[in-house]
């Protein structure tokens, strides 16, 4: 890595003021540290969020779950108030990754194969930053692209807990990120389906499945549907056609598991 300075603010406010120039936020470091080690980034200064108490922890009020942006995957996995979300968190990386990696870091990074973005989008979550609240539908804008402005920090994510939900992750065998991951969430006003790992445009909703499942929340509702391979990812691990096929299979499995 290139040499850098590091600051360890205790509050969100201090963190925001420390973020000057090329400085980057460091949360769990599970994505950023490997990037630095490969010399793919040279931020000069890192602002660590790990000492900011107000960004950590999980709060439940009624059916609304608020998770601090600095909360590690292991804590979400252990929480259980939103079972499908906890199961998702328990299946990210390995124990070391889960003990360091944070939901804020994952949502901010928006890796096209990451898990949390699917949960946030399918749950219609609200991404809370130091300046505003952003609806998930507006927040995720393509591979590694988000609505975040320069220097904006994800301080929390608010999830409305659905009546039923499940995440199915078909792993890319090497990285064990999602080759295709599908999160299905059923609310009183409809079903939302979010797909990760599959598209050149990053996490996205499968609206045709949402309509069919809103009308009839069962696998049979998916029968007539097919997914277009257009703009799906082609790589060593799968063709667009394979990913299109898996989207449907994983959606069906999520519905079965959620029912």
């Amino acid at each position, binding site marked *: 890595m*290139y040499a850098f300075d590091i600051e360890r603010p205790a509050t969100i406010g201090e963190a925001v003021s420390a973020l000057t120039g090329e400085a980057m936020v460091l949360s769990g470091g599970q994505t950023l540290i490997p990037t630095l080690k490969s*010399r793919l980034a040279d931020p000069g200064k890192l602002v660590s969020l790990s000492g900011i108490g107000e960004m950590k922890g999980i709060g439940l009020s009624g059916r609304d779950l608020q998770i601090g942006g600095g909360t590690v995957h292991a804590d979400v996995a252990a929480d259980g108030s939103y079972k499908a979300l906890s199961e998702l968190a328990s299946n990210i990386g390995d124990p070391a990754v889960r003990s360091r990696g944070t939901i804020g870091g994952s949502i901010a990074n928006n890796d096209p194969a990451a898990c949390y973005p699917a949960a946030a989008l399918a749950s219609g979550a609200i991404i809370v930053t130091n300046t505003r609240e952003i609806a998930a539908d507006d927040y995720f804008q393509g591979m590694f692209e988000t609505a975040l402005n320069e220097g904006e920090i994800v301080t929390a994510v608010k999830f409305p807990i659905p009546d039923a939900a499940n995440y199915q992750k078909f792993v890319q065998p*090497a*990285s064990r990120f999602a080759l295709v991951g599908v999160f299905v969430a059923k609310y009183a006003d409809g079903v939302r389906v979010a797909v990760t790992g599959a598209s050149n445009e990053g996490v996205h909703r499968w609206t045709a499945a949402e309509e069919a499942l809103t009308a009839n929340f069962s696998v049979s509702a998916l029968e007539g549907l097919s997914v277009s391979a257009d703009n799906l990812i082609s*790589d060593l691990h*799968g063709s667009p056609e*394979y990913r299109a096929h898996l989207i449907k299979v994983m959606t069906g499995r999520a519905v079965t598991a959620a029912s």
Partner: protein
Amino acid sequence: MPKDDGIGAATVRREDVRFLTGVGQYTDDIKAYGETVAVFARSTVANGVIKSIDTTTAAGMPGVLAIFTGEDFAEVGGNPAGWLINSRDGTPMHEPKRPVLAHGKVRHVGDAYAAVIAETLEQAKNAVEAIEADIEELDAIVNMKDALAGSNYVHDEIGTNQCFDWGWIEDNRDATDAAIKGAHHVTTLELVNNRLVPNAMEPRSSRAEYKAAGDEYVLHTTSQNPHLTRLLISAFVLGIPENKLTVIAPDVGGGFGSKIYHYGEEALVLAAAKKLGRPVTWTADRTEAFLTDAHGRDHVTKIELAMDAEGNFLAFRTETLANVGAYLSNFSTATPTFLHGTLMAGNYTVPNVYVNVKAVFTNTAPVDAYRGAGRPEATYSLERVIDKAAREIGRDPIELRRQNFIKPDQYPFASAAGLEYDSGNYDALMDKMEEVADMAGFAARRKASEAKGLLRGFGVNAYIEACGIAPSNLVGVLGSRVGLYDAATVRVNATGNLSVMVGAHSHGQGHETAFPQVVAEMLGIDASTIDIVHGDTSKIPFGMGTYGSRSLAVCGSAVVRATEKVINKAKKIAAHMLEVSDGDIELKDGQFSVAGTDKSVSFGEVALKAYIPHEFPLEDIEPGLEETAFYDPANFTYPSGAYCCEVELDPETGKVSVERMTAVDDFGNVINPMIVTGQVHGGLGQGIGQALLENTTYDENGQLLSASYMDYTMPRADDLPFYTVDHSQGNPCTHNPLGVKGCGEAGAIGSPPTVVNAVIDAMQSGGKNVTHIDMPVTPHRVWSAMQNA
């Protein structure tokens, strides 16, 4: 005897204490005053002309001590190939020079063209980034068929990308062709034996020190083969006299073949240490390991099996393209030829075998021996085509194999591929496999899988391989430029404990535990008083390295011979002490006694006498108790086995999981059954990795797409089943003193075809007429195959 730490005891591995408590000493742990760090500038293009390299800016950067480019080594020798292969027309193979640093051209991504030595790693990296290299990219030569057809060459000076065109056995060619022509049934299979990246846990590392006082060099390096490394550096590359160069392989975190060879980085740190008068260390990062360690396998093969109407095998004919990469690594020419072609008769009485191998240069990392080295390629081709043949003619795959097996009363058996198998019993292995694998329960297990919506397949395989490499006289005739004996010195110290200097380096094989078991058994003393010394050319007589499952069969035999010499001498000393003739002395339980009397002296007393030779018959016996033996084997050893596995296949996603895996091996005598089981487990993990997971892919520009663990799938514990491993069916090797055959590679040889055969069986059971699928059998490939079937 039997002692609890002698031959046959499942003694726990004593070396694991230091590995598990973190006190092992690896190359990069070795530090002294004045350390410096080397970092290499490596090509980002697969094929390119080096127009210029400007190091001016880099040289002026903080901490930079020296910069080397290919120019600095233009006058020194290249890293040679250890085995000369002649083509079918009698011409010798092409051997382009493999320089220390690329000169004129870069030939694969990762090819080093410059090196910076600096005070710290970060300073060296900064300076490498500041080197201005003008490299004109040329079209990359990646695909072997294109390489042979085209006129774009990896090495312009040889005017072809074909290294050699080898026929084995050329005299059998016509008979094989005729047998295939006249056969009742011929099964043909085209397959790919996928390229593998070795991925030792410890990346390669080399550290050199120069001692001006004696004009001496010390090289610590991650080597499976320190003596060979010294020999190559001395005789071919740098010309440092052997007696001025010490090569030490300290603890080494795995090799799997990739650390047998000498690499340019070793020569570079030596040259740099002399220039600077300071220690210089280079340690690969994981990306360098992916790009520059010698890879394994990478064959494209067409195999034909001819049978008569009864299913008797009449002939195997193989055409293989073997990728050697951009340069010839030390044993890259032996692996696809003599370690592969000679095994192409398998376990069978087949009368005709012909193998053609064309070795091809490409703009990819060099390819060389990797766990199994040639034999996995042979077994995979044979056992896949036999399985396909059984399906085509409607025969049970086990029965068809049994019908063609060599029978126990046929040994020694001269195989149609030119080897003489000394012992074996393949039916007994198959019997045992059927028993321990609970084959009777398969139908019920298949039903249970189907109830979950999954397909279940059963796959079987029989293998034979050649280990204990190798008789020097024989390999000399076949083109080897080295001998393949090994050596040991048994030193009995005055106080009765022993240091045993062995040529075979241990980097995961457990020599430090197993070798003392042999000596303890022979001397009747406690194994804990015996220590192995290995890996240091200044302490050990000589060694030809650890590979080809040769350590115990060859080096262990040298240990036996040296221990016998020690016993003979000790008997003489004891006879003198007891005032009888040495013919009357018996050694039992560490006591030398006079036959038929109660007079005896202990091993310890004899040792002390040897070093304090008062009242000693100096005219008959020299003082001291230390003996050396070199052992050159009479033949290869021939481990064999019967393997089977069951896979579950998810037809919706194509995902395959190995649910049961049974390995029944004939390793001859077993010295430490726990270590043997562990070696099989490791081999199975690597074999299943090759079969299902490990996908080395270069794109058409010669970029390695699977250059990190984000894309290259190493097997993890949860990818592997619990294994059933059995080695109760040993038929001792008939020509080495321990009767041992070698167990290090078997698992990696026997498992890939077993798994693929099971995958085919699963797809067939689901009504899909898929007859072949290439490794790695990824979910995507399975799904695609089933879509198209």
